[in-house]
């Protein structure tokens, strides 16, 4: 069993075989296949055992928070696509809700339902990629091919809805950019129906796979206390047995109407984090199907908020009032009251938070993005020490981070 190898204890004391061994310092990343982007970990090794790990981040820093201070609220929506670029629809929604909280704006139920459906589809898409990449990291290539087949179907649906496969920019402050196209909900439902058996097939490749279990169980164990102390969120927190899910605990966008379970692990190891993600996809399908079944009629944006929501395009060139309204919103931005709000949404990677400081007007004074991947990675220096080099790969795969969000 991987948990029983003899080295970690001696490594923690800084000795191997009773004598001070020579330490080897290596850079893992920023272009290592298992670091999923541009994470670099500066490892110090005693033989095969890690004695020190220093993550070096920032390779993908684009200054998103600085940029946000220099443009209107709506103009920042495309930048949120590029945070966790595996779940842009979920980011769009979290950002829009944060700003709507600032404006004390309620969006119509139809808009909420659209956002829930898209966010859960984004969750499935993100977990499928996380699972596929995790599989590759520990030597199970096939999984990736299966999960990407399913993701492709999701991308088709995203494209129909938003016009883009990847960078969707779908939310607006006060709504979404357009209504669902005819027949789209039925196709989402059809996707869900065929997805469940396919998901079981994918999970069957790993769940009782001896090699996969040996590579992941007992590896990268995070205790409940550590998970909370380091601010871990999402599947990484729930994998450690903390039943915390903002969709349940602080429902937003109408999540309280839907019936779903929160998946929780028991051991807090890499294997548990894998199991949690697998179960979350099943629960996401449940939520999507409920939302599709009771999809509310009505408007898809809060049209009454005339200083925040742009008018419908067909009215802009035929009516003076709407023309002025459109001009004001495009040039000045949606008008916000001064104040501070903080909102966290349960994204696929964890709690994505936006802290908005407004001094009034259409541009935020400060927009702090609380990136779940940033917090989740901050536990690495503790988690990696005592692990074998090959286990680092399994730990990173199970943490399922994305550097676009971590570096911002």
């Amino acid at each position: 069993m991987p948990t029983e190898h003899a080295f970690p204890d001696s490594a923690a004391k800084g000795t191997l075989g009773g004598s001070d061994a020579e330490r080897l310092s290596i850079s893992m990343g920023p272009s290592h296949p298992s670091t999923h982007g541009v994470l670099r970990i500066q490892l110090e090794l005693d033989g095969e055992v890690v004695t020190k790990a220093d993550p070096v981040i920032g390779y993908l820093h684009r200054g998103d928070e600085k940029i946000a201070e220099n443009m209107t609220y709506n103009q920042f929506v495309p930048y949120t696509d590029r945070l966790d670029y595996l779940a842009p629809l979920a980011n769009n929604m979290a950002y829009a809700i944060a700003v709507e909280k600032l404006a004390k704006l309620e969006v119509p139920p139809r808009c909420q339902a659209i956002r829930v459906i898209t966010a859960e589809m984004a969750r499935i898409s993100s977990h499928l990629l996380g699972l596929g990449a995790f599989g590759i990291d520990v030597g199970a290539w096939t999984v990736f091919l299966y999960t990407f087949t399913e993701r492709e179907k999701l991308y088709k649906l995203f494209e129909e809805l938003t016009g883009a496969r990847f960078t969707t920019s779908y939310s607006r402050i006060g709504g979404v950019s357009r209504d669902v196209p005819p027949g789209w909900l039925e196709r989402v439902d059809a996707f869900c129906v065929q997805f469940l058996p396919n998901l079981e097939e994918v999970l069957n490749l790993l769940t009782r796979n001896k090699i996969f279990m040996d590579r992941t169980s007992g590896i990268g164990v995070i205790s409940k206390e550590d998970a909370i102390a380091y601010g871990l969120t999402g599947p990484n927190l729930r994998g450690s047995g903390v039943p915390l899910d903002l969709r349940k605990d602080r429902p937003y966008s109408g999540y309280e109407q839907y019936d779903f379970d929160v998946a929780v692990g028991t051991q807090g190891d890499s294997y548990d984090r894998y199991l949690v993600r697998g179960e979350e996809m099943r629960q996401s399908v449940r939520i999507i199907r409920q939302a599709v079944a009771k999809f509310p009629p009505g408007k898809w944006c809060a049209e009454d908020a005339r200083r925040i929501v742009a008018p419908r395009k067909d009215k802009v060139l035929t009516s003076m009032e709407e023309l002025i309204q459109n001009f004001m919103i495009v040039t000045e931005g949606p008008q916000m009251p001064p104040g501070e709000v903080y909102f966290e949404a349960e994204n696929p990677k964890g709690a994505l938070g936006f802290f908005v400081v407004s001094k009034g007007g259409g541009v935020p004074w400060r927009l702090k993005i609380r990136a779940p991947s940033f917090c989740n990675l901050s536990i690495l220096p503790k988690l990696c020490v005592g692990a074998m080099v090959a286990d680092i790969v399994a730990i990173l795969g199970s943490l399922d981070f994305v550097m676009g969000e971590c570096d911002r």
Partner: protein
Amino acid sequence: MPPAPDAVAALKGGWAGVTERASLDHPAVNVPAADLLGVLGALKGAHGFDMLADVAGVDWGEGAKPRFSVVYHLFSTSTHAYVRVASDCPLDSAPELPSATGLWPGANWHEREAFDMFGIRFAGHPDLRRIIMWDGYAHYPLRKDFPLAGVESALPDAEITAETGVGTIAAPMMGGPFVASTGQMNMGEAEPRAKDESWNERRPKPGA
């Protein structure tokens, strides 16, 4: 577990310097730098805010008094409530607050980020290095006096810059990103524009 507003009342009773902070959502308090760790510790211990959700530096602008604040968001895993704790840095020239790493190890990276972006130091932090920008970078990018386009600086590897004469350059700002004037409405100024129009392809950047 008492609800969060009670926690604010209890804090105001326990610490003379603690005042309520205007907020549009969660309960919020202003805390003097000297009481910060005590208040955070009390919130974590007695009031059950056991998770540090976020630490955000804020620059209130050149000339603002005080100029720098740090805003903490705490979350309770039992009551699922948030509380906001804001603390102003006493010195504008050398902003500094006590470090919360002793309460939450997760504060380590958050505080490194605030140091990296604003130059706010955290006393007692075990490893206060830059985290997103590289070691040796000379500026604090999220300060309001740092231009959106960035500034010229040496590459992370100074040897390469010395050898090749190549460094990082400011981003070209012609054509965007667009910003709108805030506040008083003036249709002439409401046109979208690049924020810094003092230079373009033909007119060099002042001071470059």
